């Protein structure tokens, strides 16, 4: 009995009772991530479509109307306003009602006919960079395409080079396919980091932790006894999220579900250990809540969940190597979208496991030293 994990089974027994007694907390921490997935899954479309656009067509002849039709048919622009002067064009963008303004000059058709090079002014609101980027790309492409067709119209030549992009894994660029596997990683933090942090801080507040330290229970026994029940809950939550993703949003899982479940364990382990580490620092539940929130933002922004890690400044790119969600998102997207197997993902899982072990050991040492001294 005199081992490193002494007290493990007793703590596990007690913690399971706590969870059963406080059923409403458990229920809400399980149901809220599902609701969030439901809302975010339907609401967020990462493809930029139907940008509100204002048109000032000073020309008005057939050529200019054809150009507008092409803009309309691209699905990128939604032509909602037509104005007759520059001031109204500007106002529509400054007021935020439109993000793109297109001005076709009076001499557009004439210049086309005389082949002297027609110009079209495109004003783009840069306050949202992804919208601006999309608007530049699409208008440039339409302009280029239009030019080439006019140049080639009078000859028999074909396009010398033609790019044929083929999107693997998510051919329709469906947002849920891209978005939900990453969201799973973020939502799991709710039942892992938060619940474990609270469960230990609650004992600090009640004074029961001090009582426990006068018993022969060992820090590792205590922490693992606390961690394991929440691992079970986290795993259950993961299953619910995956079921919702697969059947509610129709995101197909191309790889092995068993492998996904197995490789999720190290991530759950890291998140739980992080909760325990937080609890060794926090003095109250409100305090623990604040610290736990600190972990959420990096998991969203530095994990590649929304913004690709590769485009970050060097410092943040290297920082993102310390964000567990970055590895797990690679695992979920890998298995769900790319059909990746063990060979592709074992290193991510190993890193997660090592992170978890390191955090847990640090937490155990802190419990051994700090709390006792307090």
């Amino acid at each position, binding site marked *: 009995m005199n081992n490193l994990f002494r007290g493990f089974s007793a703590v596990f027994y007690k913690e399971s*009772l706590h969870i059963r007694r406080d059923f409403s907390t458990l229920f809400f921490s399980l149901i809220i991530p599902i609701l969030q997935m439901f809302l975010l899954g339907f609401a967020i479309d990462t493809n930029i479509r139907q940008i509100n656009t204002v048109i000032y067509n000073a020309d008005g002849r057939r050529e200019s109307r054809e150009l507008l039709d092409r803009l309309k048919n691209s699905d990128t622009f939604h032509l909602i306003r037509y104005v007759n002067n520059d001031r109204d064009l500007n106002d529509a963008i400054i007021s935020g009602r439109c993000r793109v303004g297109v001005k076709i000059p009076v001499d557009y058709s004439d210049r086309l006919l005389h082949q002297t090079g027609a110009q079209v002014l495109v004003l783009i609101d840069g306050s949202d960079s992804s919208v601006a980027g999309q608007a530049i790309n699409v208008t440039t492409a339409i302009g280029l395409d239009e030019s080439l067709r006019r140049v080639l119209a009078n000859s028999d030549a074909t396009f010398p080079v033609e790019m044929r992009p083929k999107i693997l894994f998510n051919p329709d660029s469906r947002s849920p396919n891209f978005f939900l596997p990453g969201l799973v990683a973020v939502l799991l933090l709710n039942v892992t980091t938060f619940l474990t942090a609270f469960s230990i801080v609650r004992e600090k507040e009640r004074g*029961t932790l001090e009582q*426990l330290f*006068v018993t*022969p229970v060992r820090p590792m026994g205590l922490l693992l006894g606390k961690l394991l029940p929440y691992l079970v809950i986290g795993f259950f939550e993961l299953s619910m999220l995956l079921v919702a993703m697969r059947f509610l949003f129709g995101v197909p899982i191309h790889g092995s579900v068993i492998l996904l479940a197995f490789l999720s364990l190290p991530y759950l382990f890291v998140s739980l250990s992080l909760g325990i580490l937080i609890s060794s620092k926090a003095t109250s539940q409100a305090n623990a809540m604040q610290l736990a929130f600190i972990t959420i933002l990096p998991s969203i922004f530095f994990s590649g969940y929304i913004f690709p890690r590769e485009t970050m400044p060097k410092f943040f790119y290297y920082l993102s190597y310390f964000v567990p969600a970055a590895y797990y998102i690679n695992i979920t997207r890998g298995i769900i979208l790319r059909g990746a197997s063990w060979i592709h993902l074992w290193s991510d899982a190993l890193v997660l496991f090592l992170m978890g072990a390191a955090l847990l050991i640090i937490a155990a040492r802190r419990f051994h030293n700090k709390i006792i001294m307090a």
Partner: protein
Amino acid sequence: MISSTQPSISAQHLVRRFGNVTAVNDVSFRVEKGEIFGFLGPNGSGKTTVIKMLTGLLPLSGGHAEVEGFDVSKDAEAVRENIGYMSQNFSLYTDLTVAENLTFYGRIYGLSNDHLRKRMDDIVQLNGLGPYVNRLASQLSGGWKQRLALGCAMLHEPKLVFLDEPTAGIDPVARRQLWDLLFELSGHGITFFVTTHYMDEAERCSHVGYIYFGQLIADGTPDTLRELPDVQPAGTLRIEITTPHVTRALRLARQIPGVRNATIYGQSIHALVDEHYDLNGLRDELLKRNIVVAEIRPLAPSLEDVFVELTSKRQAQQEASRE
């Protein structure tokens, strides 16, 4: 220290510093087996720190302590196997039932299922918890919570139990019952280390220590403490003056030559006077000042007197050494 029987606690020159602050300064004492050791002192004087040092929760900055024969610095785990501890606010899991709390602590100490069941029966019977076994701890009153906490601390049959202010905030009946229980258990050879603020509880202890700003300034049975020369200086007499006008009487009594020290206790005044002081003369002196005295009689010092005397002596010494 050489003794025929091994003490339950042997503390020698304990020191504990927090940064620049010395919270416990050269504290030495012995608690024999089966004693009820009352550990008293003002708030912040180092009582809880000493308990934490003896239970292996706080490393010693200096000195040496053995608890039940184990060195607290080297063998904290063996110490914890052999002691029980009940913290200030009866740290129970309030969302667990009485039986579940007991089961949890039993498993922590690694009791086998059969042994645990037997010990739980014993504890439930001894502490009278029978009717409440399946009740949540949060639904128990203060007194019952305290009994359950004591039960949890004693489940593994410790030889020594630390009780940190066990009676703070519970009603007088429960307080009395707890002490009855402690006497019964100490009759079975269990040692208790009890901190308290209540002087009547201190009087019940078989051995009392008083800690004042990190220093142990009294250590002995209540009777030996009462006879200390610092408390009862040679040539003095402690008297009790009963009068309806205590506050006025106190002010005036202090002006009478020969009265060394006077304090109010309820409807009376405790005063220290010269041994051969004529008590009838005192009565006349007071009457001259319009104070009617019901009774004047000699009095043995209470423990409170003892601690007040020792504290003021210590303060005077400290001031003198500073000059």
